[in-house]
């Protein structure tokens, strides 16, 4: 019974995915324009990027699922290339992001866990610190960003600080 429920759920998931892809494809098709070299002189067509090799036309606008898949494949098949500071593979970029998240979370962990024990064990500290926690907790993490940038003056450290500040409060 559970087996067949899982199977049904999986099939339904795939169906939903296909429907979404279909909607994506349809909405793109109605919105893209075909740029064709018809009626242009030869040099003008070349300057518009319509060379005879590509059939003198190309489509433009929001990318279709197929274009997305090709680009995603290109990115994923070479995830660790490094061509200077402004062009790195998706693997390197992910590693940077995960590193920041890990570091910020680790610092929050080191601060919040001991502090949480102390607050939990001491009713005095609990009552004394509770108002501050309640006031600071609902501040959106992004709202800390300008303050962090202004005081820390380094975007990477600021990002780690923001991750730290959003992981530190109890839920």
């Amino acid at each position: 019974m559970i087996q067949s429920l899982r199977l049904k759920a999986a099939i339904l998931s795939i169906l939903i995915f296909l429907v979404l892809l279909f909607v994506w494809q349809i909405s793109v098709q109605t919105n893209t324009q075909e740029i064709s070299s018809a009626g242009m002189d030869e040099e003008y067509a070349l300057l518009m990027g319509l060379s005879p090799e590509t059939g003198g036309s190309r489509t433009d606008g929001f990318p279709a699922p197929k274009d997305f898949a090709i680009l995603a494949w290109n990115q994923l098949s070479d995830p660790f290339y490094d061509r200077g500071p402004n062009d790195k593979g998706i693997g390197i970029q992910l590693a940077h992001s995960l590193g920041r998240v890990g570091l910020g979370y680790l610092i929050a962990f080191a601060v919040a866990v001991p502090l949480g024990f102390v607050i939990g064990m001491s009713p005095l500290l609990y009552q004394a610190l509770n108002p501050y926690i309640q006031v600071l907790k609902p501040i959106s993490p992004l709202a800390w960003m300008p303050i962090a940038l202004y005081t820390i003056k380094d975007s990477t450290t600021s990002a780690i600080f923001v991750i730290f500040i959003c992981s530190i409060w109890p839920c």
Partner: protein
Amino acid sequence: MSNDNIFRPYSEHSHLAACSCGQHASQHEHDQEAEKARMLRARDAETLSKDFMEAAVVKALFPEDATRRRFLRAVGAGTAMAAISSILPFDSLHAMAAEAKGPLEKKQLRIGFIPINCATPLIMADPMGFYAEQGLEVSLQKTAGWALVRDQMLNGELDASHFLAPMPLAISMGLGSSAQPMRVATIQNINGQAITLASKHKDNRDPKNWKGFRFAIPFEYSMHNFLLRYYLAEHGLDPDRDVQLRVTPPAEMIANLRAGNIDGFFGPEPFNQRAVYDNIGFLHVLSKDLWDGHPCCSFGTSEAFIKENPNTFAALYRAILNAASAASVPENLPEIAAAISTPNYLNQPEIVIRQALTGRFADGLGNVINEPRRAGFDPMPWYSMATWMMTQMKRWDYIKEEMDFNAMAEQVFLMTDARRHMAELEMEDAHAEPTSGYPSFTIMGKEFDPADPQGYLNSFAIKRSS
């Protein structure tokens, strides 16, 4: 200043007048050991030049060596040092005297740029090896918008950057941010911008009918903003009341034009040409046709960076000037277009960048146009360019108080330095006329006389301030 100065201007036993360098007279008085220690100090070129300058200054203060020695005996060497250094800015003098080939204070630099054609010299200097030639390791940081460039310069994340030419003026005056003295080392590019309109306005070319239009500009303190406002006002439209101007990062102008959020934009290349390439817009007018030779972007850094790193700054100056002169050779342009179109720099189709650089382009209306002056690279930071920008800032009420435009221009635009470095590199432009740095300009047929900015301001019918 220190007591171990090898010329010993503070010693009552030395003879500064005996010889110009002061070294020989001391040999009779000091044993070989002391002499060696002193000479070791002189091996460092920088210390030697500092010591020499201090000695020269003290010698100038006391031309009679006997007087100097009497003075030192009377007040003591320490007091004399403190007194002299309090009235003479030795550190600045050292910075000014920094040799062209002095040791670099900082070799690894972070330089910001916005991915547009204007940044060509600054970008090209990397693959063409102009930075490396000067011993610099430059990491070019692609930045998402002008506000970010400003913030990263203010907080010191960037050592130097590509700016819009009016930005260093605005930051120095504290307009739109906290004030910090910024300097323009060179202009990056001249011309090379355009007004692009959405294709649906093909038959609506008369600005008089543009009431209610929405235009995108890259930044408030930009030539784009000032020239678009100037253009609209010359056609009788009040840019604050009759149209909407939206600050939009250049890369997002295309998406906004496609979506119909804006009717057009005054933008940098390659985005004007990109709108044509994407078949969503056409080039209404090139900025060259409003003011031929107008500055657009600049290369600059903070005054603090220049003071702390005079030799590095000089090396950077030479690299940028070399790159600008390489970029102004027309035969290099197709190659440059190919080099900067890659994902780590501009990330645009090469054909788009090439059209904007070479000036043979499709205009979006079916014509191929040949305009070699569409974009150019002329690094000279003329003072009167800054003066013009400030008249427009005053005109549109960005500058509220009365001020001396030309004094500010001479403070922020480092024209004298530019000429000195050009002369060192044996560039002809080093002696470009007028030597005063105040050429007058003609903008849409109207003369701008930098000697009379107030008169120029008064001559406009549409303006915010008086």
